[in-house]
């Protein structure tokens, strides 16, 4: 039990002293989760809009599929991405294994269903007259997409925050694809796993708290955005 309190203390030491190893893991985490979020948003927002806006045969089935993918196990994603980018896999020559972009690819796959499903729900829940209004006022297809997403911005922000949380705290993909290489692909979560394996429970707690602090910072900026996006 005492390692919890020790960990809290150690978290302050790490943050205060800007510990180089911790800093490297923080940087890796922020970089890789931002990149994966960028990819999943750029792909997921239009897909989510499409899924929420249009009516087409088989839409229910697609929704169910996307909702199922919300529970995609990170280890499965890690294995699939590994199979693709391994030297003997089809994308091997790109040299993505044991790199941050490699992890980002996996995390983007993890985040994509979250972004698509929640965006679709946000768009679906918009007033039916929204589309009539936007088009009546002269919106073309792209403007319709952007304005609808902007109208649904609070729902979409929630989607992004949820996806970011999933991406930042996952360990399966980072471990499998990134390899937990010190100074390179060691993220906060793989560092926590390592420290825990080493029996350094206090250090694990400390790093966990640092991760929580990053999440806190992200959410603070989101709520700032929210207030100013009115």
């Amino acid at each position, binding site marked *: 039990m005492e390692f919890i309190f020790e960990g809290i203390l150690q978290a302050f030491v790490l943050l205060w002293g800007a510990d180089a190893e911790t800093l490297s893991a923080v940087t890796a985490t922020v970089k890789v989760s931002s990149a994966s979020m960028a990819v999943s948003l750029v792909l997921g927002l239009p897909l989510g809009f499409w899924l929420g806006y249009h009516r087409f045969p088989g839409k229910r089935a697609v929704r169910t599929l996307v909702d199922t993918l919300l529970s995609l196990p990170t280890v499965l994603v890690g294995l699939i991405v590994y199979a693709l980018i391994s030297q003997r*896999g089809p994308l091997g020559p790109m040299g993505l294994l044991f790199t941050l972009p490699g992890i*980002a690819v996996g995390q983007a796959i993890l985040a994509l269903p979250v972004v698509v499903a929640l965006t679709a729900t946000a768009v679906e829940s918009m007033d039916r007259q929204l589309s009539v209004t936007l088009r009546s006022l002269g919106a073309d297809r792209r403007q319709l997409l952007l304005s609808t997403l902007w109208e649904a911005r609070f729902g979409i922000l929630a989607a992004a925050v949820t996806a970011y949380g999933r991406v930042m705290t996952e360990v399966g993909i980072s471990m499998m694809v990134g390899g937990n290489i010190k100074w390179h692909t060691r993220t906060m979560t793989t560092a926590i796993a390592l420290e825990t*394996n080493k029996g350094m429970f206090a250090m694990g707690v400390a790093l966990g708290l640092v991760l929580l602090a990053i999440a806190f910072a992200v959410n603070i900026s989101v709520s700032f955005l929210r207030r100013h996006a009115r």
Partner: protein
Amino acid sequence: MSRRFPILGFAAVFALVLLAVAGSAHAQQTLMMATTTSTDDTGLLDYLVPEFTRDSGIELKWTATGTGKALKLGENCDVDVLLVHAPPAEQKFVADGFGINRRQVMYNDFVIIGPAADPAAIKGKSVREALSAVREKQSIFTSRGDKSGTHQQEMALWRDTGGPIPEKEPWYVQTGQGMLNTINVAAERNGYTMTDRGTYIKYEANHQGNPPLKILVEGDQILLNQYSVITVNPTRCANAKVDLADTFAQWMAGERGQKLIGDFKLLDKQLFTPNAQ
């Protein structure tokens, strides 16, 4: 940027981040190694690798994982060199043509630990006798159960007793976790387990030198844990950096590497014994 296009602005920012991430993957003389958790967890690599880089100018990156996965990474040409400790699996790996130049570099040893009260009375016995006693008394025994080098070693010990390898027996607990967690489970259940000495030393230190589980069986020849360096087969893996891998293997087996290994101490105790031929 107009308020009408917040998403575009968003995308632009993240595209920059993406470039930054991609740009950080710089290439130089880099050797990629897969190794087992024990070499990483004990701090041996943190101690050895900077010395190697200073001597050779080669950057060595390693991913620490179970022996099974390490060998799989080698088989898939995802790493250039392996530092592992599961001799039968290694021999098969080389025989199957996945690796070349298997070179023994060092060993540490395993110990069997258990509660001081020693309910199965195994203290001081040979491994064969000790495990047979555990089986007979149906005392709790925790196992990694993860096909790691340590787990394979443990299975070899059970095989050596002549009886079947325990699997579903109620007293046989397979944790599927790392060594330290497995020791902790054994301590919680007041049972026995087999561990490498390095992890036990850390465990001992975590409990200020007075842990609930004590070393009961040690020194038996069968408990020796041999580490080897293997280079992946360049005829299968065109991109493997065989030259760099050879440099590393020679350095490890050479005078300097061997001396550093022998000097490596954890809590004032030597963990690995160099034994390159």
